[in-house]
């Protein structure tokens, strides 16, 4: 093989490796892009609530217009996060997304269908054993996002859903 072909092959291999790195880190970069204002909006380990999406909503692509979103951005590097909420009579789910946007856990009406719900979110590698009053979720990354989805249906229950959304509570266990 002459030196030109050798160089070309080497460049192609390095280019391919760079491509793999781009693909691998795209979700994490998207998460950082979506969350670029989370810190200054004081959303880390605090709950947030969104109005029903309209055409002005550009925070995420393809939002669902039938879902009232709430949730909290988490950082469980030092302490677990305690999440408490009431659950509505309509469809709801609480889903957890790691730093690379994987939906690693979802709790919905099939696992808890009435009243108050309490969850403990731990960081990677944790093996919690002492929790008896709620669901335990272990995140594969220290940082991520929890999203609560409530189906608004025909809109007749929006007031109640808003109330639930506004009462969603996320706080670090030690704070």
């Amino acid at each position, binding site marked *: 093989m002459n030196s030109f072909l050798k160089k070309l092959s080497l*460049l*192609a291999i*390095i*280019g*391919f490796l*760079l*491509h*793999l790195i*781009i*693909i*691998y880190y*795209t*979700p994490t970069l*998207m*998460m950082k892009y*979506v969350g670029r204002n989370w810190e200054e909006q004081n959303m880390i380990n605090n709950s947030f609530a969104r109005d029903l*999406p*309209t*055409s002005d*909503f*550009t925070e*995420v*692509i*393809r*939002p*669902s*217009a*039938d879902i009232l979103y709430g949730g909290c951005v988490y950082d469980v590097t030092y302490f677990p996060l305690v999440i408490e909420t009431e659950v509505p009579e309509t*469809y709801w*789910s609480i*889903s957890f*997304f*790691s730093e*690379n*946007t*994987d*939906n*690693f856990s*979802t709790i*919905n009406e*099939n696992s808890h269908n009435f009243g108050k719900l309490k969850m403990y979110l731990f960081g990677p590698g944790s093996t919690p054993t002492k929790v008896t009053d709620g669901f335990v979720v272990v995140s*594969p990354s220290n940082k991520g*996002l929890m*999203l609560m989805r409530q*189906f608004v*249906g*025909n*809109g007749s229950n929006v007031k109640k859903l808003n109330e639930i959304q506004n009462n969603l509570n996320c706080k670090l266990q030690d704070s």
Partner: protein
Amino acid sequence: MILLRRYLLYLIAVILIAVAFTYASAKLYEEFAFIKNDNWQILPSPGDKDRDMYTRASVAMRGTFALSKPEAAYFHAFNDIEDVKLMGNCTYNIIGDDIESRWWSITVYNEDGYLVENDEKIYALNSETVDFNFEGGFEIFLTSEDNFISEISEKNWIRVPNDEHFSVALRIYLPGEEYFSKLKRVDLPKIEKLSCKDE
């Protein structure tokens, strides 16, 4: 200086090769990763934690926080039943039967993937807001024509962006675990073109 220029050329070449691989993989991914069912396409495991890195990257770019199965199935249509791109200057109908699930919805997005601006604030119809016919099915009109909307105002309709391509999302929540093993064969609504402004 010559050496520096040479390494700069190598760097540019590597970046161009990486961009070419990424572009080609995005094109190939669209061709092979999606399950196609008539005019709808779906990624079988958009939010799953064991998805491959190409799916993860694709979903991050398209929807960011997709749920894993069996929580929800997300179908998208960019074309009508004749495989022609959905266009805002045409009027379409979506005809289908009720879908067995906890709930479902049909939403229209503009070319950029955002909800379509409209005075009526109707962005989607769901299993609770759609009017079903006597047979238990439904017909939804997609149009940007004000006159047409006045004519069919009592029926199901969603406004689409004028003179712009658009897409339709069909979200199905809790359809049951086995639904995901037959995504290619499940009955889905059909999107048919009725007319276009310039025809």
